[in-house]
């Protein structure tokens, strides 16, 4: 099937609401989506950013006529409420409202078990592309030489449970424990997200999927959060869960060939919860700003126990 947009998931949401009803879409989470083998081996969970991707697609399928052609400029807020598994059916309910010359789309994505995520997007007229260039990165350039040094891909895989094709950090250049990290992600048209792209697709359609940009940055944050207590197994011990992602500004599309530098700063750590902020740069230019990401370390049982049909003992006992 040839598609026009590169994306991490194949399934396309269908509009389920009638004329005059509030917009609503449904989409099946197929077990053969290509993200599952790497997210995670042995325990497939639909990545939170893929829920956001399905909300984005649902939003773009239900744009109010008066808004014209729009693109997603920012993910103002995303709150992850419960995991989504292969075989689930996602329902997305959307609410559009004009706001400060742009559009806001508020969405609730649910499975049969209840709400999975709430998402708030800011969309602007496509004509504004490439948008207000964020320009060169401001002040906080990392000072070299203070960190514990670089991590190779092999070392990253000892910290993160993500695997191909969902391991989206190539190298860590600097890691200052409990403070900051700089990581590198090279974007290439060999990534599987480009596989089904139509022959006539142009540069615009080759933009790296926004959801995966966010995922890649979050994985870099995950390395900073977990490097001193690595647990590349999602089935035991403490696992890292994303609580929310807010104020992500997507400054411009990223194309194959670009080498992204993710800068992650730890804003606050409180017992088992950490808040990060930062940005991604390409050749010194900011392509994405990340306002804040809340990450919590939780017993693996909270995930495995949420699996439909999981015995209650798993939820209570695994750790």
């Amino acid at each position: 099937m040839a598609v026009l947009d590169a994306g991490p998931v194949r399934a396309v949401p269908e509009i389920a609401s009638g004329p005059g009803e509030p917009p609503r879409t449904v989409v099946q989470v197929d077990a053969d989506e290509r993200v599952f083998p790497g997210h995670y081996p042995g325990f497939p969970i639909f990545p939170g950013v893929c829920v956001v991707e399905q909300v984005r697609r649902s939003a773009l399928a239900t744009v109010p006529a008066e808004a014209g052609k729009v693109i997603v400029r920012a993910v103002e807020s995303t709150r992850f409420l419960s995991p989504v598994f292969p075989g689930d059916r996602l329902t997305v309910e959307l609410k559009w409202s004009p706001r400060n010359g742009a559009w806001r789309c508020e969405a609730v994505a649910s499975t049969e078990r209840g709400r999975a995520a709430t998402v708030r997007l800011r969309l602007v007229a496509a004509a504004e592309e490439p948008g207000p260039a964020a320009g060169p990165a401001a002040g906080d350039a990392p000072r070299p030489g203070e960190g514990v040094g670089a991590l190779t891909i092999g070392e990253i895989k000892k910290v993160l449970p993500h695997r191909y094709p969902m391991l989206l950090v190539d190298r860590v250049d600097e890691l200052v424990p409990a403070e900051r990290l700089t990581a590198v992600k090279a974007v290439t048209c060999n990534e599987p997200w480009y596989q089904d792209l139509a022959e006539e697709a142009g540069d615009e359609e080759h933009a790296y999927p926004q959801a995966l940009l966010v995922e890649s940055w979050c994985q870099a944050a995950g390395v900073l959060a977990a490097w001193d207590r690595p647990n590349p197994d999602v089935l035991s011990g403490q696992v890292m869960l994303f609580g929310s992602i807010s104020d992500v500004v997507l400054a411009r599309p990223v194309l194959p060939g670009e080498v992204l530098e993710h800068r992650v700063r730890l804003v606050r750590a409180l017992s088992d919860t950490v808040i990060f902020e930062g940005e991604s740069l390409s050749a010194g230019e900011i392509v994405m700003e990340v306002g804040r990401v809340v990450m919590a370390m939780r017993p693996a049982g909270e995930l495995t126990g949420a699996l439909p049909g999981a015995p209650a003992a798993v939820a209570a006992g695994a750790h």
Partner: protein
Amino acid sequence: MSDNANTAVLDKEDLRETVAEVLDVDEAKLTDEAHFVNDLGVDSLMALEVMVVLEKKYGVKLGESELKEVTSLQKAHDLLDAKLKAL
């Protein structure tokens, strides 16, 4: 970082808008006295988020014990007011 040069002055309606955005609730529901946990369903992650947003916006530092005191918009306002006066 304590860059107080471009931090906001305390205005209750501005504070209400900021907190409502973080908590994803209607400003109308975020009354002065609405209890964050009991009335608005705020969890510990959201409470921490509110804290870092307010710290950044107003250029103050809030402690863990102070976080627990902030159970309503009025209490957040009073705490920030006291913090800003002490600067």
